[in-house]
């Protein structure tokens, strides 16, 4: 792989600056506003004028936690624009790579960011002093995800092996054998993780969410499927703009996504799970049942359980892919540039990630649009805060701040890291 300098606004590793403003009047929450600084908009401008082949590596740098998701949405959208279909082992390898990212990202969130909320610690370090075995389990589990991404992506962080049409280099069966051993152990750890988080104490809160996720004919969704909702939506990614719209809000550099005429909606583990429970592996379904989940889940505080179920599924699915893998003859499908437009949505760990591109005849990117999951969830996060925090208002400020943070972290937004330093502006009138 040629080395080159990609000039990007790399603020993404900070995962954004965020603040939260809650206004209370007469003992009721009047408004809750989350402000997010979000980087993808810089990247859209940056992509214009670049070759279509550069999109996977450029967009992978938007997020240090989910680069694979950006690569996957980019390659699928480009392939859609160029009329290329990638199937067989290359498609299976993409699923495997996505399994790796889900394991890494979800495990990080479960153990390092979210569990401390439930166990009453300021953060993972404090928790590790008293729950060392649990934290060690999480770290060990995450390594299985790292190993997949390092094997297929070329390195653990910012994988560089993905290209439009396939990969630069594909693994042999022998390359994947050690991964399988690692994943067998990880699957046990994932099952332990589901049982561990199922024992947490969850605030009893639920809303009638509009869930939006991919749905595929046979698979739990990573890369492919129609965009569906629990209100009857069922569209290909190419129809995304006809059904969703973005608007600016002054408090945030993130655009807010809404259903056209339909208000806020929710993407991510809760939506995926509730729309695709029947596509989980038998092991993952059984673990979810044992953890007390139904076939749908509308309590966002239980998203940590759903994430654990998805990690278990990802281990299971990765093992399935490896067991069935036969290397392809070529690591990449033939891709020829042409003028056109293409769209794709894939399931990033935190939810639907939509990319749309317009290409010139020589493959130069004329226009790019990226709608990340956090921007789609922002109205829903605010609605959760507005409706759930009412019941916590008798808490002192510090405890209330903690509840607010926990409520934001239910979404594992791309501000997760920064959300530990969430500024809470509590206006009690």
């Amino acid at each position: 792989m040629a080395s080159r300098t990609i000039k990007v606004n790399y603020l993404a590793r900070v995962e954004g600056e965020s603040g939260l403003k809650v206004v209370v009047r007469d003992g009721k929450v009047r408004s809750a506003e989350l402000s997010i600084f979000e980087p993808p908009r810089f990247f859209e401008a940056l992509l214009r004028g670049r070759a279509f082949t550069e999109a996977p590596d450029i967009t992978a740098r938007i997020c240090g936690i989910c680069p694979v998701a950006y690569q996957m949405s980019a390659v699928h959208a480009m392939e859609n624009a160029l009329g290329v279909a990638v199937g067989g082992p290359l498609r299976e390898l993409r699923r495997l790579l996505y399994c790796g990212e889900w394991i890494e990202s979800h495990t990080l969130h479960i153990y390092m960011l979210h569990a401390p909320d439930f166990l009453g610690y300021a953060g993972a370090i404090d928790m590790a002093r008293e729950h060392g075995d649990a934290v060690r389990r999480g770290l060990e589990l995450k390594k299985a995800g790292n190993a997949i991404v390092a094997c297929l992506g070329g390195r653990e962080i910012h994988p560089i092996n993905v290209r439009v049409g396939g990969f630069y280099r594909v693994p042999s069966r022998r390359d994947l054998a050690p991964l399988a051993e690692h994943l067998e152990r990880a699957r046990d750890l994932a099952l332990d993780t589901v049982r561990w988080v199922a024992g947490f104490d969850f605030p009893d809160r639920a809303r009638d969410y509009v869930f939006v996720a991919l749905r595929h004919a046979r698979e739990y969704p990573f890369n492919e499927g129609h965009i569906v909702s629990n209100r009857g939506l069922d569209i290909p990614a190419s129809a995304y703009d006809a059904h969703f719209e973005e608007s600016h809000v002054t408090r945030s550099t993130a655009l807010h996504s809404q259903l056209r005429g339909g208000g806020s909606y929710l993407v991510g583990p809760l939506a995926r799970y509730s729309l695709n429970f029947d596509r989980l592996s038998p092991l993952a379904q059984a673990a979810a049942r044992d953890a007390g989940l139904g076939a749908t889940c509308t309590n966002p505080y239980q998203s940590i359980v759903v994430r654990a179920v998805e990690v278990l599924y990802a281990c299971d699915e990765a093992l399935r892919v490896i067991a069935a893998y036969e290397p392809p003859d070529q690591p990449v499908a033939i891709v020829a540039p042409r003028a056109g437009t293409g769209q794709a949505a894939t399931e990033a760990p935190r939810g639907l990630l939509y990319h749309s591109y317009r290409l010139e005849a020589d493959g130069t990117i004329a226009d790019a649009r990226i709608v990340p999951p956090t921007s789609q969830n922002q109205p829903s996060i605010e609605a959760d805060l507005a409706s759930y925090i009412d019941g916590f208002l008798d808490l002192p400020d510090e405890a209330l701040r903690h509840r607010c943070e926990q409520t934001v972290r239910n979404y594992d937004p791309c501000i997760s890291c920064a959300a530990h330093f969430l500024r809470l502006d509590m206006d009690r009138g």
Partner: protein
Amino acid sequence: MSGARTRRLVIGVGNPERGDDAAGRAVARLLPGTLPADVEIAEGDGEATSLLAQIEACGTAVLVDASASGAPAGTVRRFDVAAAPLPQDAGSLSSHGLGLAAAIELARALGQLPPRCVVYAIEGASFTDGEPLSPAVAAAVDDVAGRLRAEFGPPTATEG
């Protein structure tokens, strides 16, 4: 992962495309061939759990990172983090989210901190995307590489 912790590791931490944030990695790139053969040299982006995975089985770990503490650009500070946590004002760049300081404290809480664990912080001047190292930081990178060679001894001095 068990047994005597004899591994020795140097990790250059940072973002190679964000100006002086690349300082730690630049040091790592100067080291191959100049340290005892058993000393491993690695680079990392500073994410805490990945760093922890790298250092947990080591007897000696030296981490080199850029800092933004307000000191003059190119200032080099050495912290013995086996003895005490990084000071709050060290200005570790990767302290946002779960970074280098978190990796060290997580390792300490889990009893996995290498018995010898040192952090070199190189004060950066500019963290602009795509920019090269600023001159003061480039000089400090050479300086730290030299200090690491002094810490570990010459390439011929392997165990035995």
